[in-house]
């Protein structure tokens, strides 16, 4: 599901209700019935055999069952409760050294076999124009294995009534504390993915994700001004336990932030008060500021300015017609001295962090997942690459970051979790702020935009606090910062220690044509960046 369809479905985009237009919507209890593993294996084998007989030198089949549940509310009303299921098979083949792909929701064995033959026919048609045959890094078949997200409470098992009651409490507390409007949502994802390949893998994975966003708006009817404060919750690779509101996981400060457990009601109350405060907060004076960026904000800057430019397919030009290419070219990497950031900056990729959106045991081409460095002591040391790419880096093993957002989408290189390692010396956010003479403390992610080679970016936020001589002076508004990726990361002057490390993330990272989404987390502790250009975004319209 892409972001546009999510907005339409949840009514957030247009302020209207909509029924889903694709995906099979089913009763809640059916979401709990386990898939038939033997049946999936039989179907996959049928597809692999058909592909081989049609002339494929390699084939993989993904039998996928993708489940979503939404509970969508505004103020006192439940707008929509939807259970969706999408079930089908996608078959990817190499024939004549060329990729081909076909997918079908018709799960009759002969239809799946036909889709495999279609994939081979497509590969053969395209091979006439292929100049560089596919070069797959070796990958040992995994045999029959299974893995599941280590959740404590399956969110799909929580009764709908409990979910509705919780959102109604969130909404009523927000309204009682000054909100004029609130939209709140539970968004549950369960990907039941079965992967089989001609190399002898039969990998069954049960992946869970959860997101609980809200949007609180305050309106000043007199002046016509309105301001929205979004939740500080983060999408996670966890179960319902994320919503327990465990006090030990709260990070106190100018506003409470949350580590591995989220208190949605408390955050909604804070959001209502802060949305009102935003209506009268002074407008920022543009200029250079030292920025203190909370992990609830910094994840998005990491995502855009580190995650995307270090995708090898972008670097090489495969995404040129859509998201673009990258400034982080191979010559910079080969030089072994390209200073991506200051010496404090260590950025790493992984698909294994517990609780993260990217965590799985195997990627969508059957490669065991792991962690690796991207930027070490400020220097660019590696990229993100999959089986048909790593040979271009003279590396022998895929990094294990191949993903498809549906059975009907072809898998390709997607961003793993990309995180900023915390500082090695003890430092709290309060101590960091004490060292800042003129700065802005930013909490929560807001507006974001970056160019097609990932040089020039602009970010907003949810909450902005002006810092003067080591103290927070108060809230300010109309803040956005503009910088250049390399300049920005080289201005990184301090990092809080690991006790402040938290994950943020996105459910809707878009890439590819046809477009696909993926969910990805980014961890960091609070970080300071010196002398960043801040603009004022206030305008007047007639």
């Amino acid at each position: 599901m892409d972001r546009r369809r999510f907005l339409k479905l949840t009514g957030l985009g247009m302020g209207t209700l909509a029924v889903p237009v694709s995906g099979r919507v089913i009763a809640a209890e059916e979401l709990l019935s386990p898939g038939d593993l033997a049946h999936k294996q039989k179907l996959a084998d049928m597809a692999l055999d058909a592909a081989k007989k049609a002339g494929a030198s390699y084939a993989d089949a993904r039998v996928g069952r993708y489940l979503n549940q939404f509970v969508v509310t505004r103020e006192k009303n439940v707008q929509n409760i939807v259970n969706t299921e999408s079930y089908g098979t996608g078959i990817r083949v190499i024939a004549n050294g060329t990729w081909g792909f076909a997918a079908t929701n018709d799960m009759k064995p002969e239809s799946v076999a036909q889709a495999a033959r279609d994939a081979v026919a497509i590969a053969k048609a395209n091979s006439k124009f292929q100049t560089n045959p596919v070069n797959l890094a070796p990958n040992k078949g995994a045999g029959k294995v299974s893995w599941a997200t280590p959740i404590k409470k399956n969110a799909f098992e929580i009764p709908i009534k409990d979910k509705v009651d919780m959102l109604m409490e969130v909404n009523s507390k927000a309204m009682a504390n000054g909100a004029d409007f609130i939209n709140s949502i539970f968004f549950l994802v369960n990907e039941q993915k079965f992967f089989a390949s001609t190399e002898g893998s039969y990998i069954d994975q049960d992946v869970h994700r959860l997101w609980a966003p809200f949007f609180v708006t305050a309106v000043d009817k007199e002046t016509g001004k309105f301001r929205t404060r979004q939740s500080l919750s983060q999408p996670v690779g966890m179960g319902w336990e994320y919503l327990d509101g465990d006090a030990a996981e709260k990070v106190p400060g100018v506003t409470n932030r949350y580590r591995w457990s989220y208190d949605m009601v408390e955050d909604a109350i804070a959001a209502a008060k802060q949305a009102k405060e935003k209506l009268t907060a002074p407008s920022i004076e543009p200029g250079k500021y030292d920025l203190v960026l909370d992990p609830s904000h910094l994840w998005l800057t990491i995502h855009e300015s580190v995650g995307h430019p270090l995708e090898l397919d972008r670097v090489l030009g495969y995404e040129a017609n859509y998201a673009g290419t990258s400034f982080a070219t191979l010559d910079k990497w080969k030089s072994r001295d390209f200073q991506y950031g200051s010496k404090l900056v260590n950025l790493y990729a992984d698909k294994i962090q517990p609780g993260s959106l990217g965590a799985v045991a195997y990627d969508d081409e059957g490669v065991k997942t792991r962690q690796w460095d991207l930027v070490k002591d400020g220097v660019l040391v590696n990229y993100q690459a999959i089986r048909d790419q790593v040979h271009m880096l003279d590396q022998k093993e895929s990094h294990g970051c191949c993903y498809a957002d549906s059975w009907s989408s072809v898998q390709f290189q997607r961003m793993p979790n990309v995180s900023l390692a915390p500082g090695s010396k003890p430092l709290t956010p309060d101590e960091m702020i004490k060292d800042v003479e003129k700065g802005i403390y930013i909490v929560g992610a807001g507006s974001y935009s970056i160019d097609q080679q990932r040089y020039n970016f602009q970010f907003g936020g949810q909450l902005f606090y002006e810092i003067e001589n080591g103290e927070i002076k108060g809230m300010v508004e109309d803040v956005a910062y503009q910088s250049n990726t390399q300049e920005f990361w080289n201005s990184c002057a301090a990092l809080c220690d690991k006790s402040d490390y938290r994950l943020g993330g996105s459910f809707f990272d878009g890439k590819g044509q046809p477009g696909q989404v993926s969910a990805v987390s980014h961890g960091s502790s609070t970080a300071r960046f010196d002398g960043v250009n801040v603009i004022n975004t206030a305008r007047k319209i007639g």
Partner: protein
Amino acid sequence: MAILNKDEARSILEKVMKYSQSEECEANLNGNAGGNIRYALNTVTTAGQVNDTTLVVQSGFGKRVGTATVNEFDEGSIEKVVRRSEELARLAPENPEWVSIEGPHKYGASRAYFESTDSIDPDYRAKAAAGSIEPAKKNKATAAGFLEDGTSFQAMLNSKGLFAYHIDTGCDFSVTMRTDDLTGSGWATSYANDVSRLDTEATSQRALDKALMSRDAKALEPGKYTVILEPNACVQLISNMAGAFDARLADEGRSFLSKDGGGTRLGEKMFDERVTLYSDPLHPDVPVAAWDQDGRPRERVVWIDKGVVKNLFYSRFWAQEQKVAATPPPGNGIMEGGKKSTAELIKSTERGILVTRLWYIRTVDPQTQLYTGLTRDGTFYIEGGEIKYPVKNFRFNESPVIMLNNLEELGTPERVSAGNPIMMPAMKIREFTFTSLSDAV
């Protein structure tokens, strides 16, 4: 199975009504069949095809509504999906904003299906890619492109007897050409319901010309400039703004169309008087279904008439609350323009910047419709009515509301690409705000 004709679709939907035991039942049937090819680095990278058909059933008991869908169409599966939606309806809390389903309507018929597009095969796609890669190679450039074609249908029937059916085809092509010295980049796109009207080679040539022209760009200081935005450069800003023509948001005071002190700006002149924007599902160049997803007819609606805000769109609930006609959101968009080509707009420009496209556009402030983003794939300095040289890309922070008040001239409307069934003219705008430079090519 993926594509059904009107009678086949109706026959399945009638089975749903036969099994329904709810007070109100509405069923939607949607299918698509299509293929695509993607190429980059002057070689084909991925290609595929996908077929899918889905039946969506919504059942209602009073103000409780449940929805379920299935993608199998035997009698047992159809009965099962009806029962499931009824079970979900009983589980759901009452929705105070519930509105009864629509009764039957008469709809216009837009012509959007073309056999030529329906019969595209993998060879056609591969040849289109080859026809784009060859000129790139000959000109020391690298092509990356994407072609996607498909046929889709939508049908609905409800227990009040409303029936609607629409079928369309489309083929979307886009290509980015980058010079091998990595200093120039050009992009072009085209879309047609009837693939016989699609010229992928000409589109590729446009992208290539832009790439070659944009080599070795010079840096200009950011600031306010007169710009000529080509249709593909304006479209997202204008369609984002039109997406905010939601009456409820305006009435609730959280829209740029809300009035200080309460009420909306409906009827106010907010834009230059040359600005007229309407939607019309039967427009031959941007045909779409003549009905909205809840069965409301899409008529010709003027949203902005000579600069005046003329209409807002409503959910059926909000229209009922406000006691007004429930105008659905637009399915397409047509902005009126003039008769001039982009070349003629350039000719009449003393100093300005020509923008091929804008990229990574995001809302900065919904209050003022302020957006940020960047120019991309062909940005040029104009002086004395001529393109003088390519310039480095800029970041902008600008509001389409301000833009449409700073209007100098409009070009001839043309169809822009895929996701946007929109006719958009090029626009010459004064004092467009560029806030920083980008090194991106």
